[in-house]
């Protein structure tokens, strides 16, 4: 039993090493980083973080990311809820085909769509807005949200719906007052995965923005162009991008494993 525990421990150490490296680097001066290898910061400095939090281009990048990610999460879950309900409760013409078609959208390489997306969103006049990125990320997040929510909803017996109707609930009132509280966990898991995939996706986010809605990770490319590599700054910005995900995952830690297990193939 004890020997077996070694495997996850070694694996987690392997996962944490590069992250530790990034975090420790963010507290080093650029000179120290370029001078050679050191395991701990020799001269501990918060300069990189101060630079980020005092420069609007930097922290607005951060805020922009959070805005479009939240917008996308809200949008994806909101439209996925009724659709997942339909898939879990009713049979209708073309339901299976539709479900599979939704899933195929995860297979389309984002690189393929980058340019057409740029043209599409430019032509409808929302290029460089948070909405554009939020809408674009719906492409792969809605199918995922529908898939996860459908799994959770299927585990709720249909009798719940029928009892509510007998008790005189209208459909919207039933859905919000009775049904949603029962699939809280599912909504949490779906929201988490939408958040995650929207947060980590960069190609589309970068393509669809220029100035106004530029995401943090796109701002990061600045470190490469100006005056060589500002590695400390890059590391600090990188560290900051890990934090929102870490916070969100802590909230859903007991559900993440279940979320996928309940989806259907």
């Amino acid at each position, binding site marked *: 039993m004890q020997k077996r525990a070694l495997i996850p421990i070694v694996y987690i150490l392997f996962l944490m090493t590069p992250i530790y490296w990034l975090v420790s680097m963010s507290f080093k001066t650029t000179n120290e980083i370029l001078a050679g290898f050191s395991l701990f910061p020799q001269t501990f400095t918060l300069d990189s973080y101060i630079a980020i939090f005092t420069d609007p281009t930097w922290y607005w990048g951060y805020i922009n990311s959070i805005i479009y990610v939240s917008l996308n999460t809200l949008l994806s879950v909101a439209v996925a809820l009724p659709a997942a309900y339909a898939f879990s409760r009713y049979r209708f013409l073309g339901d299976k085909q539709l479900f599979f078609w939704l899933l195929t959208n995860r*297979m389309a390489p984002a*690189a393929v769509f980058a340019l*057409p997306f740029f043209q599409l969103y430019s032509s409808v006049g929302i290029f460089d807005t948070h909405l554009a990125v939020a809408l674009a990320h719906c492409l792969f997040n809605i199918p995922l949200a529908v898939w996860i929510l459908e799994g959770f909803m299927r585990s709720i017996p249909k009798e719940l719906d029928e009892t509510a109707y007998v008790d005189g609930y209208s459909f919207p009132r039933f859905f919000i007052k009775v049904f949603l509280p029962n699939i809280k966990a599912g909504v949490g898991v779906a929201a988490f995965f939408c958040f995650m995939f929207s947060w980590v996706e960069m190609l589309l986010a970068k393509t669809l923005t220029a100035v106004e809605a530029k995401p943090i990770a796109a701002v990061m490319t600045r470190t490469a162009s100006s005056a060589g590599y500002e590695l400390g700054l890059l590391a600090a910005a990188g560290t900051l*991008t890990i934090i929102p995900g870490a916070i969100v995952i802590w909230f859903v*830690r007991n559900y993440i494993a279940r979320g996928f297990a309940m989806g259907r193939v």
Partner: protein
Amino acid sequence: MRTENQKAWFFVLPVLFLVAFNALLPMMTVVNYSVQETFGNNQFFWEGLDWFEQILRSERFQAALGRQFLFTGIILAIEVPLGIIIALSMPRKGFWVPVCLVLMALPMLIPWNVVGAMWNIFALPKIGMLGYFMNDVLGIHYDMTQDPLAAWITIIVMDVWHWTSLVVLLCYAGLVSIPDAYYQAAKIDAASPWSVFRYIQLPKIKTVLTIAILLRFMDSFNIYTEPFVLTGGGPGNSTTLLSIDLVKIALGQFDLGPAAAMSLIYFAITLAVSWVFYVVMTKDDQ
């Protein structure tokens, strides 16, 4: 079970509209490009299926496709067994479970270009931790900007680092759903640990494992940002995977026709492989 109700379509409409807006319009644009030739100035000429033929015959495409299959094959061969082994050796309950899950999920929550950038610095000789460790502690010459093999190894290790946890999480979810009685029955039947895995655990995690492999296949086949930031496709073309090549053609050279044709071929391959895999994995269930 489920009742027949055509009005259910109304529930699906918002999803349908949003996804179709994102999927169909750009797809039509791509199809449109793929059969035309442009010399700029918004002038287009009908090209028919020439681009497709050209792409399929081009050595450059074939090489990129080969590298893509090699990459996906290697990472699946590592991540799937490794993920299963880790999931099997994780504790089933207790304080450490959420801690393990959160720590393991962390790499998946880092923006992809940050992943690429951090591995790039991590691997730098002299100043990066991995580079320093390889060159100065172990004395193995390691420089991924010069050596294609080192570049490949770095990309693969990065992907294993980034995505193995997805397989772990899914398999773990499958494993915890196995009732204790199965393990007890196996003990009474004097089953070996291998039999327990082969006849109890593997059949029960098959569904989630299928999802894991499908997701890993699709995502690794479409991978772009991380390897692009890490190696930029180099040294030379040695790590130029399919989507990196595609973006080079489309945005670098602005050859929209060939790029579009290539996109469609690419998409078709992904779809076909996923479908075959899906059918093979689920055929026992019928």
